[in-house]
């Protein structure tokens, strides 16, 4: 099967790639663009290491074909990171020791980005649900949850919002 061009917005900029239809989005951003922060942990949609944002929502990068991205807006961990330093979520994760080997971390960051985009002040149950599709073999999740709760707390203070019932 010959390669075909696919054009989409990647990390806020236009991108055009020549891909085989069988190539997944995760594979394509890694191989064609060297954006290797999107990791392949299982390639069958369970581990979440390949998480990317599609129009702001966390999805499996290994379960979407690159050709399907035509005209869509995709954000990878490289696009979700500030030019220097760490984002609010990344910073909280470092402060809470919410990573060890780092292989799941980009996916975790994006799963949480997606959560906070919809729910600025999530409770623990919301957080556990948001990362339930992202496997971590090192941390036991507890420090990741703690990091996210600290961001929620900060957001709550900033927004002056009431604590959610969750």
């Amino acid at each position, binding site marked *: 099967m010959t390669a075909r061009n696919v054009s989409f917005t990647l990390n806020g900029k236009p991108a055009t790639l020549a891909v085989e239809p069988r190539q997944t989005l995760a594979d394509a951003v890694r191989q064609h663009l060297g954006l*290797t922060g999107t*990791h392949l*942990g299982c390639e069958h949609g369970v581990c979440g290491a390949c998480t990317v944002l599609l129009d702001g929502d966390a999805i499996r990068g290994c379960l979407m074909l690159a050709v399907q991205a035509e005209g869509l807006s995709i954000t990878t*961990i490289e696009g979700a990171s500030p030019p220097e330093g*760490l984002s609010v979520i990344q910073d909280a994760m470092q402060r809470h020791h919410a990573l060890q*080997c780092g292989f799941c971390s980009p996916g975790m960051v994006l799963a949480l980005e997606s959560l906070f985009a919809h729910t600025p002040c999530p409770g623990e149950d919301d957080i556990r649900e948001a990362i339930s599709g992202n*496997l971590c073999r090192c941390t036991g999740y507890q420090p990741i949850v703690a990091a996210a709760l600290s961001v929620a707390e900060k957001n709550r203070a900033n927004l002056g919002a009431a604590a959610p019932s969750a």
Partner: protein
Amino acid sequence: MIGQRVLRVEDKRFLRGEGRYVADIALPFMREAYVLRSPQPHARIVSFDASAALALEGVDAVYTAADLPASLTPIPCRIPTHGDMTPFLQYPLARDVVRFVGEPIAVIVASSRALAEDAAELVAIEFEPLPVVADAKAALDPATPKMYPPGNIATQWGFDLGKVDDAFAQADIVVEKSFSIQRHSAMPLETRGLIASYDKARSYLEVWGPTKVPHTNRAMLARMLGMRDGDIRFAEPDVGGSFGARGEFYPEDIFIPYFAIKLGKPIRWIEDRQEHFASINHSRECTFQVKASATKDGRITAFDVVLVADLGAYIRTHGDVVPSHAAASFPGPYAIRNYRVAATAALSNKTPSGTLRAPGMFEANFAREQIVDMLAEKLGMDRAEIRRRNLIKPDEMPWYVGTQSVNRPTLFDSGDFPGLFEESVSRFGWSTPLPKGEGPVRRGRGIVALVEPSGFGPFESARIEIDPAGFATIFTGASNQGQGHETMLPQVAAEVLGIAHDRFRVRHGDTAMIPYGGGSYASRTAVMGANAVHRAALAVKAKALAAAAQMLQAKEDELALDDGKVIVAANPSRFVTLAHIARVLTPGNAELVPAPKDFIKDDHDGLTGEVFLRAIPSGTAVFSVHMADIALDTGTGELKVERYCVSGDVGRAINPMIVEGQLVGGVVQGIGGALLEELAYDEDGNLQTGSFADYLLPSSHEVPRIEALVVEKAKSISNDLGVKGCGEIGISGVAAVLANAIAHALGTGARPTKLPLTTERLLDLVEPGS
């Protein structure tokens, strides 16, 4: 610096997606490999035809065993074993017989991984199936056809300490039970992978992807291929977890480099998850038959154990170390002098096995700690009390169990077991009443005590270099799969040298950067790696003080290190910076060593320190207590872990945040092993769990809040820093404590003896005979 909760310096790159794992590395003209593996559990290869695959455009080669050197030996066992393992070793590629589903048969090299997989489908292999040895039970049956000329048992050994039979004859009570632990594996989130590149003209082979013990494996590759150590570089990239399974000397570690040499182009092999299930070392599969006795005041008088481990189809580089540790350490933290064990390492047509975090100990603890509860139940004694009465006392240290494993005596060098035990019990509130169960929910509480070895030998290395700008680099022979060494090791050096920890970089796992290295396993880097760094820092300090004394015209004992400077303690305005000293000590600098006029002479060797540190073979012992409250839904068999507390006496915590992370993460990995994970085979030797849809890892929903109690009661007496390793105590007691809590909830004498504890097995315990 030591003892502070310093944030990890490596986190930034990981969080930004800038970690560089092996699959993220690419080289010019690189080709991709796919390993064609046996679909048969036991078969003779009758014919092999790759012509259609080779005809596919973009396919470079299809290599088989015939393409490896004829002189190539099987992969040797690298640690001492009980008996001769040579009949059971694996060739890197199958020759005429395959013995497990997943055994490498051929390597397809192509322009892309997808194309290599297309080609693999075109390879025609004819097999003649051979009888399958399904499990250890079959292996032990003399009627089962033999996998190897000597049979289906790799080795048998045992210990008979004290007077076991007398103890049973004189005991007030005796209990007996069998336990079985399922086959599972470490399952790191990153699969394995290698990139090998050979510069033929300069005879230089570089391999990226090795980890855990790169130096050891490089030497093994050199010996097997008849190459020189100095012609091979093994370099560790970022690594997505190991937990014991990575870094064996796997077949791919030999044939990927060799075929890169043969092809004349770099080859990248990135294992996919499907391969990983069948090719990574499996672990843990074993059964224990345990008999124990006690006096009526709760003194445990003897253990008698029959241990049978199923090691799979071949003996790999770790030999029989897993059942060996289990057999040697079964008595745990208790003062037991009558101990007998008969151990068998059986073979079966399944993936070979190796270590998984707390190898042999997770298993032994599951059996022993339930037996201890059974003794308590029979005596009507509180389950904490029976443990309290049997723990080894501080004045009984060092404690020799009397057994050996891999030629090391089982030795607990130091410890205050009762001290941590009491602190743990009181912190958890062992005696506080459990919340009542509502409806079908029954609650239970469990406790276990255990001791883990850490910091095994043989040695570790470290070099510290301070450059003329005052930046420091630590080179370590340890390797890193996510534990935090890039932060922890600088904390140790910073403590000595008075430089901020973030002025350091750590280079690890690279044979080109340090000539010898031990590696990371057996919870050893805080013990061996950190102590090596500590002594290297002391060497740098001594050198800096000696130079500064000359430069400041002062006596060395008047000087002190302070914030990157050597100061005159009585007059801090008189100082030289370490950067300045480094500059002066740079070879060729004439300030302290003027150029000779008539004959060459020795020069400075920089502001550096290099240390090779020899370990105590048996390491240093870590005591730990696990306690948990569970809720069992007796209508559905669903289990909820409601509270969990793990404690550990680590002697000295270099970075308590990292230690707690190891404990909590270990507990959750243990919850997976206790409740969810299983590498299941059917009776014909076919692996049934080949995806994350059926091999289940714990997710964020399955885990409780875990409290980690890290104490520094009993410093190790066998190293400068007094540290003990913390990597394995978190996982070691999980299955045991959950089982004890479940039995407590049931209150009927029924016990979960078979892992994993699925809803079905738990409901079977609720409704016996249903």
